[in-house]
């Protein structure tokens, strides 16, 4: 029989057990986990919009391998408007820039283990002179001074020659890249360079496979986080985004050329909200409205001014979720001379309307051609159409297949179109030449005044004098309303959550030189 005392004892014990059981679990002290190095997948897969043309082409191999497989003698530091050493240690300018003598770094190796020396530079210059449009208009000859010194003679005496040496196209390749070996007239086989990657496999329009170039990683004292770097060529921009979302690729990136085959800017915000890592860098590439300025009605500076004043750039960037910046200057602030020029593009629709009324052009019909392949530009054009309608200009949009677009553009059958000036940092002066020099085909705007200033900019070696010419040039373009800047473009990479890379590594070479193009030497995909 249970006594009252036993009953109370059992009850107390039971209640205590119950209370203990219901009590919040106190954390059990465990030894602190030591941080472990994440393990990375052997393969990194990138979705890219353009074939890498690893067997060559009219303009040589693609921009991606030019940046990742090859290196250049010099690189460009946009912020300081300086050319900085890369494969070359230093250089001397002779005969007003007609001759540049480069002293090369020693101990640099190509990915096949052969030595980088003056012979490789001479071979590249001669190969480019015969096989490349930019090379043939640039180089005259190259002479070996000693094993690590090479003297290059250019066709013209100008500062632009040095600027060109930092260009994609002037990347140095091994004489073994062609067959017969070292023959500038030889057949191009595969690029062999001193860059971070070496080519392993390639199937045209399908994929390219790279592996880390151990000599490059050794030179910079870093270790790769992948064994194979696979690039899948996915032409359609929306399909590329879908490939990222489905996990088919680890990241997608922009075509380094700038201005085409990129991740649609109107999707960057959405991707960011969905948890993808968006790396972006503003580059000196400005989207503009280009006019057919040689024919009516835009041969009239007042008409161009009206369009310029009517465009609300803040609205334009909203299309892209404010992922890009409105262009109130011709180029980004980091570009030489922009800040000092003090030129600001204004939004003043009332003034624009007044100009149109004064010209008696209210209700005028103009056409604007757009390339159908670029969904972002179709949206921008629709917005501009509405903004110009408000001041009395009726814009007929012609959204055309790329081929038809180019045909109309080349035939001059348009009044307005969207275009871009500038490029990634290294192309700043090259595109200055291509867009504003009277001698070029792909012009955005040229007048006697701006053409003359462009010539002076590309000739002048003295940085300060060049800056003064640039300032005058920005002012002239603004006064003549040659083009209407819309927004500053960016270079982007969108990566899955388990991709490891910092912004610094994505847009800087290991020696600290800033790059406009995304770099992938430091990427790794964490094992989940």
């Amino acid at each position, binding site marked *: 029989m249970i006594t009252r005392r036993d009953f109370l004892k059992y009850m107390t014990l039971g209640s205590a057990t119950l209370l203990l059981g219901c009590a919040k679990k106190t954390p059990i002290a465990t030894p602190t986990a030591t941080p472990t190095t994440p393990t990375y997948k052997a393969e990194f897969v990138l979705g890219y919009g353009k074939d890498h043309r690893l067997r060559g082409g009219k303009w040589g191999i693609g921009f991606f391998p030019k940046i990742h497989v090859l290196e250049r003698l010099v690189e460009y530091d946009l912020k300081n408007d300086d050319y900085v050493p890369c494969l070359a240690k230093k250089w001397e300018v002779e005969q007003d820039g007609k001759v540049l003598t480069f002293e090369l770094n020693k101990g640099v190796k190509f990915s096949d283990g052969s030595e980088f020396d003056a012979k490789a530079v001479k071979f590249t210059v001669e190969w480019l002179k015969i096989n490349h449009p930019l090379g043939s208009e640039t180089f005259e000859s190259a002479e070996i001074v000693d094993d690590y010194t090479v003297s290059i003679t250019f066709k013209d005496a100008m500062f632009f020659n040095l600027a060109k040496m930092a260009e994609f196209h002037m990347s140095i390749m091994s004489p073994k890249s062609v067959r017969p070996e070292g023959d500038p007239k030889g057949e191009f086989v595969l690029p062999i360079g001193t860059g971070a990657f070496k080519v392993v496999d390639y199937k045209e329009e399908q994929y390219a496979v790279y592996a880390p170039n151990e000599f490059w990683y050794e030179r910079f004292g870093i270790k790769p986080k992948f064994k194979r770097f696979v690039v899948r060529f996915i032409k359609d921009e*929306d399909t590329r985004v879908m490939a990222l979302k489905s996990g088919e690729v680890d990241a997608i990136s922009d075509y380094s050329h700038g201005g085409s085959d990129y991740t649609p800017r*109107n999707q960057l915000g959405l991707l960011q*909200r969905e948890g993808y890592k968006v790396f972006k860098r503003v580059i000196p590439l400005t989207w503009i409205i280009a006019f057919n300025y040689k024919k009516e009605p835009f041969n009239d500076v007042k008409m161009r001014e009206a369009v310029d004043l009517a465009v609300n750039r803040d*609205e334009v960037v*909203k*299309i892209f979720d404010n992922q890009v910046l409105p262009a109130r200057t011709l180029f980004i602030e980091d570009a030489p001379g922009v800040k000092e020029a003090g030129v600001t593009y204004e939004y003043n629709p009332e003034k624009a309307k007044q100009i149109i009324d004064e010209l008696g052009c209210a209700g005028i019909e103009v056409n604007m051609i757009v390339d159908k392949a670029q969904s972002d530009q179709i949206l921008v054009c*629709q917005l501009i159409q*509405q903004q110009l309608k408000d001041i009395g200009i009726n814009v007929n949009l*012609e*959204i055309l297949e790329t081929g038809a677009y180019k045909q109309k553009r080349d035939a001059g059958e348009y009044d307005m179109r969207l275009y871009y000036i500038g490029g990634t940092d290294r192309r700043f002066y090259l595109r200055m030449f291509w867009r504003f020099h009277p001698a070029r085909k792909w012009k955005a705007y040229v007048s006697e005044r701006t053409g003359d200033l462009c010539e002076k900019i590309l000739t002048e070696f003295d940085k300060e004098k060049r800056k003064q010419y640039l300032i005058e040039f920005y002012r002239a373009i603004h006064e003549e309303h040659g083009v209407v800047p819309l927004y500053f473009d960016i270079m982007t990479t969108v990566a899955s959550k388990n991709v490891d890379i910092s912004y610094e590594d994505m847009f800087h070479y290991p020696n600290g030189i800033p790059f406009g193009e995304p770099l992938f030497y430091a990427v790794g995909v964490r094992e989940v």
Partner: protein
Amino acid sequence: MEFAFASEVFRSRIFKNNLCTIGFGIILFIAMLGLLAPVIADDPYKTNLAERLKPPSLEHPFGTDQLGRDLFSRVVHGARTSLFVAMTISLISMAIGCLIGAVSGYFGGIIDDIIGRIIDVFLAIPELVFNIALVGIFCVAYGVSTWNVILAVVITNWVSYARITRGIVLSLKEKEFVLCAKAIGARDSYILLRHVIPNAIGPIIVLATLNMGNVIMTIASLGFLGLGIQPPTPEWGQILNSGKNYITTAPWITFFPGLFIALSVLGFNLLGEGLRDVLEKRTLEY
């Protein structure tokens, strides 16, 4: 007499048929929306970036798109575009197809053989693929225009009318009233236009109604592929296409034009089915 008969058929048969009534109601609803678009909806082109990607609300019943445009206005104005283009295509295709089919069936012989082979060639090529190719060619040759789409679809669409008309005419030309007309010396063109085609009109109307749904789908498909009517003109397929990247964040951009495409196709199919029931019943009674 004929008018009285037709009106009696409409009253007693068509409106008593449930499929007809529902189909007709849906089409009437969409057509009214389209007709009244300038009254009931705002400017479909008006952009307002501050209102970008807004969900449906009292102010914007269907939400807004990526340029802040009111989707209700765009969808309702899109009804005008889609219905006008579909009607134009159907009428032109019907006129061409019926004439070719009637000539082929009535005269027979080598004319029938040639037209028959041409029809076979057209039927052998997948319609949408053919349309895509044609629109591409026309755009390059003549520039961008709504008429490119109309022309491209007409080129492939007349074939079904020609095939059906030919079959009907083949059986009609042996009927007594045709033989009588021939016996009294009536001209072939007179017999065709006065006696043969009017008697084939029932099945052709059914085909035309059912075909409207197909044409709307084709226009929307071309619009979705970016080959149809070009922005900023509101068109359902093209609005649907513009919303595909926002399907997870702004599903209303794709939902409402999709709904209207589905409704209009359903409406024309129901009306077509109903008309077939009514007209077949009438044929059986005779």
